[in-house]
């Protein structure tokens, strides 16, 4: 698959956050040479799953052009987005939109929620006049299961978390994007409302052909909606491939531990084995080899000395010294 047809491709993207002043510099590698790609031919949901602090939100910010990587490239249909001029970036946003995690901080509290809808329409002038704008908005709201009179003219605090998240999807729909970066869209919602948003993502993919880069820490939601899965741990991808294959037969020790540790809502299928928590967790920048060394049951001394390289096994990729 030639790179130019890939909807989105990351090549060895690296981001290092440093704090302190000249001599007292402290450097934390938040994203460590991450590469993955979303195919451009058919809409898919690609999940990037990892613990909090694993760098997944930093990657989302880089893909959206808010953060510049220290190394590597982000290609949109083969063109590096960081070489875009201002107007090109605006067109990029026309096709790549986003939905965020915290329904309470994603709306500017001093405006009614209409502000986000009208600003988008005005800035991308996709409507000739008020009437057409309102029509577009009504259509977008209904396709995300909201009624205009229930939502428009209200301030954010007057809407529930679920309504606010749905409205964000409606805003994206106005621009008919090709890709929506969904950064933990349901993690702040209760289980009962979560199902509605997950179904909405599935519908938008099927009905409007929109691809999703779904960022989450919760694998069971990923299993429900996504086609591909990449597991990220302390800034590095450890395993990547079709989700069903990974969930049924995980290769990387961290993926195994992760899948086995997800609590199952069934009292008869309780955890059989115990997991030992490390007596002291190492700080990220002290590690040269594999980052999972201190918690890995299969660790070897090569894992401590050398970072594992990429290994292709049928349609999957894994970074682990177990697989030569």
């Amino acid at each position, binding site marked *: 698959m030639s790179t130019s047809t890939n909807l989105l491709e990351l090549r060895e993207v690296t981001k290092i956050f440093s704090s302190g002043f000249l001599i007292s510099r402290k450097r934390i590698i938040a994203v460590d040479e991450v590469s993955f790609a979303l195919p451009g031919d058919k809409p898919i949901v690609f999940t990037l799953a990892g*613990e*909090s602090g694993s760098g997944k939100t930093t990657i989302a910010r880089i893909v959206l052009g808010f953060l510049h990587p220290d190394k590597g490239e982000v290609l949109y249909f083969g063109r590096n987005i960081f070489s875009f001029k201002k107007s090109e970036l605006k067109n990029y946003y026309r096709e790549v939109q986003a939905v965020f995690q915290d329904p309470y901080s994603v709306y500017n509290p001093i405006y009614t929620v209409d502000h986000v809808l009208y600003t988008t329409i005005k800035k991308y002038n996709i409507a000739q006049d008020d009437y057409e704008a309102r029509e577009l908005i009504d259509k977008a709201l209904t396709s995300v299961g909201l009624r205009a009179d229930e939502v428009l003219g209200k301030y954010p605090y007057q809407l*529930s*978390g*679920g*309504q606010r998240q749905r409205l964000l999807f409606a805003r994206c729909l106005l621009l008919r994007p090709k890709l929506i970066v969904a950064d933990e869209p349901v993690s702040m919602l*209760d*289980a*009962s*409302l*979560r*199902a*509605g948003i*997950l*179904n909405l993502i599935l519908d938008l993919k099927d009905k409007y052909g929109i691809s999703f880069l779904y960022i989450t*820490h919760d*694998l*069971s*939601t990923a*299993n*429900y909606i996504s086609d591909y899965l990449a597991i990220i741990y302390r800034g590095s991808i450890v395993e990547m491939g079709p989700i069903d294959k990974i*969930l*049924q037969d995980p290769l990387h020790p961290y993926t195994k*531990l*992760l*899948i086995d*540790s*997800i*609590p*199952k*809502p*069934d*009292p*008869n299928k*309780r*955890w059989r084995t*115990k*997991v*030992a*928590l490390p*007596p*002291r*967790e190492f700080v990220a920048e002290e590690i040269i080899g594999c980052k999972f060394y201190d*918690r890995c049951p299969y660790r070897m001394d090569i894992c401590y000395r050398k970072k594992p390289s990429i290994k292709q096994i049928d349609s999957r990729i894994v970074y682990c010294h177990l697989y030569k």
Partner: protein
Amino acid sequence: MDTLLDIKDLQVFYKTELGPLRAVDGVNLNVKRKEILGLAGESACGKTTLVQAVLKLIKPPGYIVGGEVLFNGINLLKASENKLRQIRWKEISYIPQSSMNALNPVMKIANQIIDVIEAHEGKVRKREALHYIEELLVKVGLSREVAKMYPHELSGGMRQRVVIAMALALNPKLIIADEPTTALDVVTQRGIIQMLKDINKDFGTTLLLVTHDMAIHAEITDRIAIMYAGKILEIGLTNKVFSEPLHPYTRLLISSIPRLGSKQRLVGISGFPPDLRDPPPGCRFHPRCPFVMDICRKIEPSLLKFDLERFVACHLYSR
């Protein structure tokens, strides 16, 4: 008498500009000795308020309106300041959700645990206490040197284990854990949950576990109580409640949890939780309930005994 803690008609409201918010509105619940009781419910259903009321930690604008909390025959709500102080941590210890700043940021871990010991057993020799504390830390899988460290030097998972070690320090009869693993990653969460289970098995400590995550209840609790909009809708043995949920809300709650390996269409719950400043009349779930009947809109169903160890508050079963 195998009941350790008995909550009777507990009511806790919060003062707001638009009138009192009825966070906990007449809750009856008892916790049996040596069991793990789960308290489930979605955000803002009142479970944290209930737990804080039991420990009398409600701060303004919250206030306790009425009801009793009986522990070994003493009503904690009416107990004297001193009597309450003696019971706290000696008999009932508490693991809060925000492990981020549940520990005093400027004090070493060892000193914070010594504080607890000295508050209940008087002065202790530092060397002896330190040895005991290191044992406690090892029991929760932490290295001994953690005793001399400060909270900001520990990860979230380590901090939560320190709090658990502290909870075990005086070998209490009851540990109340309020969302102990919400802020943690999945693997650490599993470790903590298994640790709590072992504590209950090894020391016979009763555990009241509060969390919105039904899957965690399925993993660890013996009995479970479902809470919604300030009231208890259903209580029962965990495997019974999961296999045959009675109350419509419980049924919908369980069916809206995504399961690994199944792609079956999820069913959420339409609408959203009521505003507890003026809750809907009758059953508080009726606006969102698929089986709503006329009676549900008028009369509030009381928590009735359905069969052994099973209670439900729903007109479907009250005929």
